[in-house]
């Protein structure tokens, strides 16, 4: 006996599984990414940043706006596409997978001398964050003040002689000349 409704159900299930698998193999989806990321790798003078990834995903037209050629629909930059036109999703897509916390390690300085390497002029993590974030914030009228994104820590206030370490109007040796 042939049960048409059962066969239909099975076919539909298989088709859905197939579709789901092909999508997940094809590309990382925005919904796969975390909604919020705590950026704390370089927090010292400023508090860690609670980065609203979901909000920025909605704002950016494509993941590649921030993630260059590592995820999304690939790069549109003609310089990058010379090597990365044959787009493929990379395994690791977080900023610090490429941009190192120690911007001027012996390795990074050595890389600057390798002229056959296109990424000889690679930014460190702090530079990458601020150039990518701040550049876009300036264009999109986002927050651009230091403490609009991260509050100063006690160490930060000490460094800047601000907050509770601010100089009294009478004290301070800086003549600023």
């Amino acid at each position, binding site marked *: 006996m042939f049960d048409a409704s059962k066969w239909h159900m099975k076919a539909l299930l298989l088709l859905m599984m197939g579709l789901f698998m092909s999508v997940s193999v094809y590309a990382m989806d925005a919904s796969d990414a975390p909604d919020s990321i705590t950026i704390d790798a370089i927090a010292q003078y400023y508090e860690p940043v609670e980065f609203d990834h979901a909000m920025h995903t909605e704002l950016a037209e494509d993941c590649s706006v921030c993630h260059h050629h590592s995820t999304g629909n690939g790069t549109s930059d003609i310089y990058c596409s010379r090597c990365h036109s044959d787009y493929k999703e990379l395994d690791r897509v977080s900023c610090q997978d490429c941009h190192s916390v120690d911007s001027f390690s012996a390795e990074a300085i050595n890389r600057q*001398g390798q002229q056959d390497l296109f990424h000889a002029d690679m930014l460190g993590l702090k530079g*990458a964050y*601020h150039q990518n974030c701040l550049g876009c914030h300036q264009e999109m009228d986002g927050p651009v003040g230091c403490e609009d994104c991260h509050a100063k820590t006690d160490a930060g206030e000490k460094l800047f002689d*601000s907050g509770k370490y601010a*100089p009294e109007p009478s004290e301070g*040796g800086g003549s600023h000349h």
Partner: protein
Amino acid sequence: MSKVSRRKFLAGSLAGGAAVVAAPAKKALAAGNFSGFPDGMGVLVDLTRCVGCRSCEAACNKEQNLPKPAVPFDDTSVFDLTFHHGTQKRRPDENAYTVVNRYEPEGMDKPTYRKMQCMHCNEPSCLTSCFVKAYTKTDEGAVVYDEHVCVGCRTCMVACPHNIPAYAYSKVINPVVKKCIFCYDTRVSQGKPPACVDICPAQVMTFGKRKDLLKLAKARIKRNPEKYQTEIYGEETVGGSAWMYISGAPLDEVGCDTSLPKEPIISNVKGFLGVVPMVLSIWPALFTGFHLLATKNKDHHDSHHAEGEE
């Protein structure tokens, strides 16, 4: 002895003297082409990246144990300060080895901020002008000084084309010259970037070997010709320096002195100074020789004459 042989001797000695004159002068001129130590470090400052946060000033202050500032380092009102009837912006002094200034170049929609500090020249005029040899150009590229031998003559302040060395006028006892030392003692001598470079949030400054940085600078300009000016300030300016600037705005509109010559300042006097030791050592010997020859002849003549009379 015939007169001819004496003439030959004189001619020979003159030719020899001329050769000695020519040799050191030529050598001195050739030495003017020193372009830094091969593995000397440097810093490339990209003015298109700076947002004027003054973190570099704060980091310098703490690293070098400088006095507490008059206003907090996150106060940007200092950009409005001018001196000498508005003709001069802030300059590094004994209390601040680096300062950031704001410029508003014509036709640019954003201001340009420029940090200034010692350029750490390849052929520093402060070093060559110092008569107690207080200054040293290290293998790493830093221009450092020994304040224990500084006598406070301030010749280096006059000699510096970038107006960097400052004087500790506020010190009553033993005032000395003060300037940026590339964080040599605490960082650069150990291969670490200076404090200002380390703290900069936007990586305005790139620390590396000077020769590599020049290539990076040229690559950045080539890749973005509409964003950058073609000149690299410090590549050849007064013989080149460890610190170099690239800019989106014309360099002379952001406080760089583009009227400075390509030749190091010492080139102006090197030819002359190269001759001084020669004049002091060769000339006395040469002219004493002439004098002896002349008087010897005279004595001989006199004695011969006397013999004749006898």
